[in-house]
């Protein structure tokens, strides 16, 4: 029987969840097919993926650790997206945040932790924010498309980071490897108890709740969301659109900067090029999957982080190319985006006369 597409009268209540789970299933099915195509046992492969992501405490801790920078970057991206400002530059703002934090730690290595860490966070927010502020300024003054400028600035940021670690900040004792000296204890975020997870997790919780409250209960947060309907509506409502664009980009970049700070301080304990693993890009996927809601972002970042960890496990056990994880991420995003069609429309059997 032929099907027709019909517009829904009301949005589908549980649609978002159903679509997300559907996308996940579809992605797993495609992955299994890809594994089979490589001559591997597909079911075993998926089992290895499961084990690597959620199978044991070690895996869960790994996922949580990766979820922290993803969450912060993603919050930043989502704030800008809420206002329909397309900040694709979380990767670069993340790098600048790491640079800012490293700068402070190298400048004041002997300060006590309670002073040094806040200093690092401040500088990370500032530099990340400024990096995102540049495209906002260009957009407003010269009408430069922010998608292009934020993306371009990513490359500049990574080159800047390379310049620093290959040059002025290089550790003389590193046998020529591009990395800064290891941070002093005061510059390192400590772990929680005996686990591998660090206190950055609590920081994420505070930032997430803070941002949620900001969007929901403050006038500025309301104006920000209202501006998402376009500059003309903002002007109609006497909202200062230009100011808001600059503010939101600064905030967005600052949050990504914090992610960079947390990652350098807690995980690597120094600045080195291997810091840049694409959290800033995955954050865009996470933000869209979560439909820009802070709580959903927490879940989505954990899920995608777990996926990353799981795929790493698969790589080791089954000798699978590293690109496999990227493929899975891409499939999930595309399926979810395509599936969002069903939030507004539904398929119905055509009535035969």
């Amino acid at each position, binding site marked *: 029987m032929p099907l027709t597409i019909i517009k829904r009268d*009301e949005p589908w209540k549980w649609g978002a969840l159903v679509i997300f789970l559907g996308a996940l299933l579809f992605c797993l099915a495609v992955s299994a097919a890809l594994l089979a195509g490589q001559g591997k046992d597909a079911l075993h492969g998926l089992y290895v993926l499961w084990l690597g992501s959620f199978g044991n405490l070690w895996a869960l801790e790994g996922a949580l650790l990766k979820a922290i920078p993803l969450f912060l970057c993603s919050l930043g991206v989502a704030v800008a997206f809420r206002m329909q400002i397309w900040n694709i530059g979380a990767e670069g703002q993340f790098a600048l945040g790491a640079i800012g934090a490293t700068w402070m730690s190298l400048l004041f290595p002997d300060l006590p932790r309670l002073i040094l860490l806040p200093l690092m966070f401040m500088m990370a927010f500032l530099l990340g924010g400024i990096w995102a502020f540049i495209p906002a300024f260009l957009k407003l003054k010269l009408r430069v498309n922010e998608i292009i400028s934020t993306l371009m600035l990513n490359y500049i940021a990574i080159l800047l980071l390379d310049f620093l670690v290959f040059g002025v900040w290089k550790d003389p004792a590193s046998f020529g490897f591009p990395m800064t000296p290891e941070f002093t204890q005061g510059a390192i975020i400590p772990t929680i108890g005996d686990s591998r997870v660090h206190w950055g997790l609590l920081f994420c919780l505070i930032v997430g709740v803070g941002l949620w409250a900001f969007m929901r*209960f403050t006038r500025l947060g309301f104006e920000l*969301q209202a501006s998402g309907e376009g500059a003309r509506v903002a002007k*109609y409502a*006497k909202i200062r659109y230009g100011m808001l664009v600059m503010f939101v980009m600064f905030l967005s970049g600052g949050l990504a900067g914090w992610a960079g700070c947390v990652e350098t301080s807690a995980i690597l304990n120094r600045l080195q090029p291997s810091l840049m693993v694409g959290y800033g890009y995955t954050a865009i996927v996470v933000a869209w999957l979560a439909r820009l809601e802070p709580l959903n972002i927490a879940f989505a970042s954990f899920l995608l982080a777990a996926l990353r960890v799981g795929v790493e496990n698969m790589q080791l056990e089954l000798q699978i190319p590293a690109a496999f994880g990227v493929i899975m991420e891409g499939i999930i995003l595309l399926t979810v985006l395509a599936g969002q069609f069903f939030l507004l429309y539904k398929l119905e059997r055509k009535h035969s006369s």
Partner: protein
Amino acid sequence: MSELMFVRPVSVRSLPEGTQPVVSLKGVTKRFGKVLANESITMDVYPGRIKALLGENGAGKSTMMSMLAGRYCPDEGHIEVDGKPVRFTSSKDAIAAGIGMVYQHFMLVDCMTVAENVLLGQEGTFFINPREMKKRVGELAEAYGLDIDPAARISDLSMGERQLVEILKLLYRESRILIFDEPTAVLTPEETNKLFEALWRMTEQGKSIIFISHKLEEVIALADEIAILRRGRLEGELDPSAITSKSELASRMVGKEVILEVNRKTVEISEPVLEIRHLTGLGLTDINFRVRKGEIVAVVGVAGNGQKALVEAVTGLCKPPANTVFIMQQPWRKFFAESTWNRSMCYIPEDRLGLATLRNQNMVDNLLLTTRKGFSNGPWLNKKRAEKDTLKLIKKFDIRPGKIHALAWQLSGGNLQKAVLARELYREPRFIVAEQPTQGLDVSATEEVWNRLLDARDISGILLVTGDLNEALQLADYIAVMYRGRILGMLPTSEEATSGKIGPLMAGVTD
């Protein structure tokens, strides 16, 4: 009243005995979810006749026509063409059966010529000869007495001429039934008359016309038969010659007696709230007038003669030259720098969904859009209080559905306009700019909006920009007629002669 110069050639055309209907709807029902849009409608359309379809917003006119045009399939019942049942699965099927529709928004390629637009998608062969194309379209236009140059570019044409191109497109596809969705909304009175003459000529050559309209006087002047839709049901079909008054027709349309003429009591007029002095620029030339508290000044004119620029300059969307616009006795720049959220200016724009409201947000957020400063407490927003006030406004203005969680896009046009009006009046404005406040609204909603605006004169002055002359005559104290960026006349509605002067001024005739 907008005066129609069109006089029908024969006052009543009787239907010859034994004429077979060209299209019939037989017990057609259409549902959208729980909403019954059309309920067992049976209607015949005869060749060579004009059938007017009258009904309020949401009465089911568009649904019915969309089924005829092949965009929807009826849930029950069927459509017959020439007495044979048909099933349209797409608009292509409908066109093949000879049914064509002219939509409110024209679907033309602006940078192409008339002939090219008519033949677009109909070329038949890969190579086409421009001269041949022009000739064929020219002959077609002549055959139906449509006065249009096939070589003209669409972008150079007026709205009325563009409409003729849409008609030509249908004629070229040999449509026998032409459906017009509110065709006169964009036309000047003169263009309306020309359209009516063209419609009449087409019926003489055997075409059937279905004419959807809100404007009662047009329907009475033009139609051979009037079908009235009410809440998805066919309320009845009338012979226009049997209609004694417009209010009778209106009452049949809405089911209760509606007075289309509102009572305008006089209000004390005091200080000016808007003064425009020698405003030139933004496409405007030497505009001078003022609006005082307690009065309504209407700006009328054919769309695109500078009304938009005037509104944008006054409401702050565009910046006028210095010392030309004074609002509440302050220069423009100072007013916008210092204006407060309430007891100030408010703007009810034409574009309700795209400008006045947040389409994906609920009623509370939409109330907050312009009143948020009234609900602020430092950086915080008191949403509890906003919810309470939203609920109050929904009750007071009877905005449906009466839920605060309804999103703007889910509201019908009339309810959305009521919501905007409720919000803007909540701000206790001293000066209101209302742009096409009743466009697309049904009679009862229009009446309500009119009364609200008249009541608002107690505290404010109103600048009313409208395309509906009746609205201007009913509400305003003065009517300013705009033509090519100028105000050609400022006419007091208290004078009898005013209504007759507007039409020529709109066309630029000042003699």
